[in-house]
């Protein structure tokens, strides 16, 4: 078949309605749509403070066709643990409990709860949709913001000076049964990973790159192309890790130069040639370490 048969791979059922409040071209809304379709109606989502708090719709609306529990910023993983415990006590073994959090609520303020849940191997599916900054509050930096990016708290003159936190390595170090990265541009890969995760018990973690037009200063229709470029140039490799030990790449990563990706985004437009080279070097070095992990598991 010459075209990836998304028609057959992506389940039909919609568990999200139109009329939600995401910005046009929002990667995070597409991510939720695809993940929910794949998980099906026996799903409960808990949602800390993030863009989706607003996207879901104000009371009395909900744009999701599954139960949705809004919770405090730090608590996606801990609230999910409680929901899971209650379902277990009710004898419900079918429903998937999903913690759906942004990068702020995962990499920063929610990291403790996530680490605790992962260490206990709580039977939850934790999905982080990563737009690489605190977008809901107006584009402030998080520890998921890439090196060199402009944000309102890393303005021009002092762009982000620390590299993006390697969250997958952190989760892998917890030895959870399944951790993976995914991209809204690789739909078949994302669906396969969600399906795989759903069938596993224990803590499963999915880190989805979700480009944000207002935050990245890009055009609405570029969201998927950017999510694709990030994979092709190895800035956001698509991997999965089983039991923290077995790493593998799930798609091809030809290693296109990062420059085109950076130049396309307003948040990176200020980068000098030297800084672009730095990003390339950092990307290459991270890739080399990843290849080593894939080869040797360390």
């Amino acid at each position, binding site marked *: 078949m010459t075209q990836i048969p998304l028609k057959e791979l992506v389940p039909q059922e919609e568990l999200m309605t139109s009329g939600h409040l995401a910005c046009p071209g929002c990667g995070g809304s597409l991510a939720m749509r695809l993940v929910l379709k794949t998980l099906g*109606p026996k799903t409960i989502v808990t949602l800390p403070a993030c863009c989706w708090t607003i996207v879901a719709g104000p*009371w009395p609306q909900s744009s999701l*066709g599954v*139960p949705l*529990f809004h*919770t*405090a910023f730090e608590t996606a993983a801990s609230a999910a*643990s409680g929901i899971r415990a*209650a379902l277990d006590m009710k004898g419900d073994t079918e429903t998937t409990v999903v913690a759906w959090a942004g990068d702020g609520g995962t990499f920063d303020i929610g990291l403790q709860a996530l*680490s605790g849940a992962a260490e206990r191997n709580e039977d939850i599916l934790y999905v982080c949709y990563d737009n690489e900054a605190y977008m809901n509050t107006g584009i402030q930096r998080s520890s998921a913001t890439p090196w060199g990016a402009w944000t309102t708290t890393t303005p021009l003159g002092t762009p982000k000076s620390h590299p993006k936190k390697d969250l997958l390595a952190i989760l892998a170090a917890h030895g959870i049964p399944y951790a993976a990265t995914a991209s809204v541009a690789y739909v078949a890969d994302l669906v396969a990973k969600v399906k795989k995760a759903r069938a596993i018990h224990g803590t499963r973690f999915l880190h989805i790159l979700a480009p944000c037009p207002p935050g990245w200063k890009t055009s609405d229709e570029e969201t998927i192309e950017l999510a694709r470029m990030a994979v092709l140039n190895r800035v956001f490799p698509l991997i999965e890790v089983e039991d923290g030990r077995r790493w593998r790449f799930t798609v091809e990563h030809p290693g296109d130069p990062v420059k085109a990706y950076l130049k396309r985004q307003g948040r990176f437009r200020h980068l000098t040639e030297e800084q672009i080279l730095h990003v390339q070097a950092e990307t290459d070095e991270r890739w080399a370490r990843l290849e080593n992990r894939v080869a040797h598991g360390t």
Partner: protein
Amino acid sequence: MKKVIMGNHAVSWGVQLARAEVIAAYPITPQTQIVEALSEMCASGDLKARFIKVESEHSAMAACIGASATGARAFTATSSQGLALMHELLHWAGGGRLPIVMADVNRAMAPGWTVWTDQNDSLSQRDTGWIQLYCETNQEVLDTTIQSFKLAEAVDLPVMLVLDAFYLSHTSEPVDIPEAAEVDAFLPPRTARYRLDTSDPHAYGALTTPAVYMEMRLRQQEAMERARVVLDEIDAEWGKRFGRRYGAIEAYRMEGAELALVTSGTITSTSRQVVNDLRERGEKVGLVKVRMFRPFPGEALRGALGGVPQVAVLDRNISPGHSGIFAEELRAALYDLPPGRRPAIHGYIVGLGGRDVTPATILDCIARARAAAKPSTAPEPEDIWVGVTP
């Protein structure tokens, strides 16, 4: 069955008999025995519950919130720093109308580090929408634990039951532990009207605009009002089934009292002794114990203290910049009494950081109150700190 048990274990027994379903807790001195015993009960199967050994108190409360929102009977226990860490989420449980029960072992707040008792931890949380019940004895602790679940689920509000660090938590007393079947008759399983359910999906806690937020808060307030009535009903039922009643407040030897002590927690039992001794000597001193602090039993207190010339409030807490909290709330509640019936209210700060409150301390407070009543004396400052190094 009668057992000699420490206060912490009385909580554990109460939780087991109440058939809590999800427990999420983090250890902190002096609460640890509560959760250790519960762990053993879960391990042995005496308690069929999921025990989540969370990595912080904030997560403990978050997990209880998630579990309660899914319709389970949820419980946690903490103290001091742990309770403070939960603060954000206490609002969430209150506003979310989740009937979570929590045991707080009253412990003073750091810095400097301390493990001994005072009430600042629980009283700092008085605005979060939790019902607060202060216990005097281990029997009361066990009884209140079980009653808390019934109360919480009747009004859909979380309940905090409070016991003094070490004086109750680690002190063993004889406790009559009711039979499981008797408790089951008193407390059936929880049926939640609103719960996370894939067969009836809704969103909970979404953005609420100024147009509706106040009404939801009003409903929370109305639930607090209903809690007063429900507490009385539960108290009466418990009295019928188990022969013990506590009430929202207890008036002790208040007949014709000229001076009333107002106390909470273990200071109450010491005060009973002082009152008995004074009455023996013919002095008209009585005691009003405050058990329920939220909702504040203003009307009951007006009834018990209206017309009593002097009230001495013993506060094992302080709101820095203002006064002892029981005294402050009492003054506000009694303000509307007609001038002839409004007592002179003296506030005494005692026992902070676990300092012992002995009969001598209490007598000291009474003496100061009497002295203050004399017209010749200069007006006293709001609260007197008793027993401190000047």
